[in-house]
């Protein structure tokens, strides 16, 4: 099929996508790098000057920066833990011979299609509100005092909301993987008297390993950029208790108009994402063929 003519045509067909993505990746990134070395505030654009490493130093000595890094990691790891463990459990439950499996699947997958601001507002108001929320009603019913979630446990509250959004995704992918498990092998193991935990540990879990890797990989990409959930619930507070790196940079750029500082933060975010990506891309690369 690969005559010279078709090869030329193929190149022509690929070119627009490659050029677009290349420009989209390189141009803004170079601009961010350039701005990160400037003293540049939108409130005072006339005073723009070369800053050297000042913006990076400023970030590095800001205690909010380390808290943001810590919050970012806690958020990602917390959500991953809940969604992977919960996803495995729920996928195995749905995979059992149950009535109405189709409907159960639809109910479980639904939160994934709820846009982040809506998910956050539903939880903030109807579920976690300290006096009118459902959880407050439950607490009163049980005779304990309601919890003021976003004031007392801001980061945990956000982890719960985001985990609710991503649990369906993990469940669906793990269920898909589970359904391709060889049932004969399972039956053989059962006949040989392997107990349930051994079947899970030595047959089910290894079979799902690849799907679990994919879930972790894809969720990490999205979880590093969590933004709207924080904006509409805690707005990063109290203080900076629920500010992640994305939110910190947003604050520098949009609320403090500090273009140089936000750009330096952006570069730091790229470095962090790349460190994680290098390690994760290897896993996906192996799964390609």
């Amino acid at each position: 099929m690969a005559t010279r003519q078709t090869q030329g045509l193929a190149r022509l067909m690929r070119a627009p996508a490659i050029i677009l993505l290349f420009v989209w990746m390189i141009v803004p990134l170079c601009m961010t790098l350039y701005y990160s070395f400037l003293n540049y505030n939108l409130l005072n654009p006339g005073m723009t000057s070369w800053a050297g490493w000042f913006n990076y130093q400023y970030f590095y000595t800001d205690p909010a920066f380390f808290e943001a890094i810590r919050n970012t990691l806690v958020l990602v790891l917390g959500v991953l833990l809940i969604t992977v463990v919960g996803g495995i459990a729920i996928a195995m439950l749905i995979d059992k011979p149950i009535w109405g499996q189709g409907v159960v699947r639809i109910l479980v997958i639904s939160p994934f299609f709820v846009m982040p601001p809506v998910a956050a507002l539903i939880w903030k108001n109807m579920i976690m509100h300290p006096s009118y929320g459902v959880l407050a009603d439950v607490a009163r019913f049980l005779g304990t005092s309601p919890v003021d979630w976003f004031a007392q446990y801001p980061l945990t509250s956000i982890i719960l909301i985001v985990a609710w959004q991503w649990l369906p995704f993990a469940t669906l992918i793990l269920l898909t993987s589970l359904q391709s498990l060889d049932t004969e092998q399972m039956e053989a193991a059962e006949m040989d008297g392997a107990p349930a935990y051994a079947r899970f540990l030595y047959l089910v879990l290894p079979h799902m390993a690849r799907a679990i890797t994919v879930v972790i990989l894809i969720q990490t990409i999205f979880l590093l950029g969590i933004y709207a959930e924080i904006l509409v619930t805690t707005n990063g507070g109290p203080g900076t208790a629920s500010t992640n790196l994305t939110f910190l940079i947003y604050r520098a750029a949009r609320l403090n108009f500090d273009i140089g500082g936000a750009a330096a933060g952006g570069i730091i975010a790229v470095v962090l994402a790349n460190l994680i990506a290098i390690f994760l891309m290897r896993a996906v690369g192996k799964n390609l063929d």
Partner: protein
Amino acid sequence: MARATSRKARIGWTVAAWLVALLIFFPILYTIITSLKTEQEAIAGFDLIPSFTLESFQTVQSQNNYFRPFTNSVILAVGSTLLALIVAIPAAWAMAFSPTKRTKDILMWMLSTKMMPAVAVLVPIYLIFLRTGLMDTRIGLTVLLMLINLPIVIWMLYTYFREIPGEILEAARMDGATLRDEILYVLTPMAIPGIASTLLLNIILAWNEAFWTIQLTTTNAAPLSAFIASFSSPQGLFWAKLSAASVMAIAPILVLGWFSQKQLVRGLTFGAVK
């Protein structure tokens, strides 16, 4: 699993699964219920039976002109997806049917552009939009969303196209089909399901995008994600109204999502899990 299970065990598993499913679905269900309540009912404590009033839906439309962000969402989601398909179909086609040594590298590189955190380019994109007058315009945001989702679109299409067997082309050629016939009558019908599921999934992703839409719009081009986010403070305790707006914002995509759940796995895992 086709093993014989006792009726008792089956009932047990069914009850457990339904309980978990309802618990997960509960926040959405409760939002739907609250949207059918009056404002007084909405904060009157836990109650699953609303008075089935449509008052809140009317209020959202008359006070906030709901129709505008809704139209913006449709234009942005559909527009950016169609633009992405125009660029991605030829590219994915070429990579699937005449791959070169570098095709795999190119695909991995495309995927790696998704790893770039959005916030890293917030400053330049914001300034470009500000200076070129693209701020708060539908066209600017449509192009941006197209670029963001382009790698996923190319990947999805590629995994679908790659499954079209090459032998079928040879068979068609033996039967005297021209290149035009091949594309029109052999390849296109086989490619359409893949293109359709890519379209569906990408509309969902674009509809729910909430970082750039909030950063780059105010009122004119604001889609539902930005519109709802602005509800967070001033609307305070108007929960029935908030719920009505939320229901209208998620309902279309929820239905689309239910139809595309199988493709979702493939699409979002770049074909790694099927």
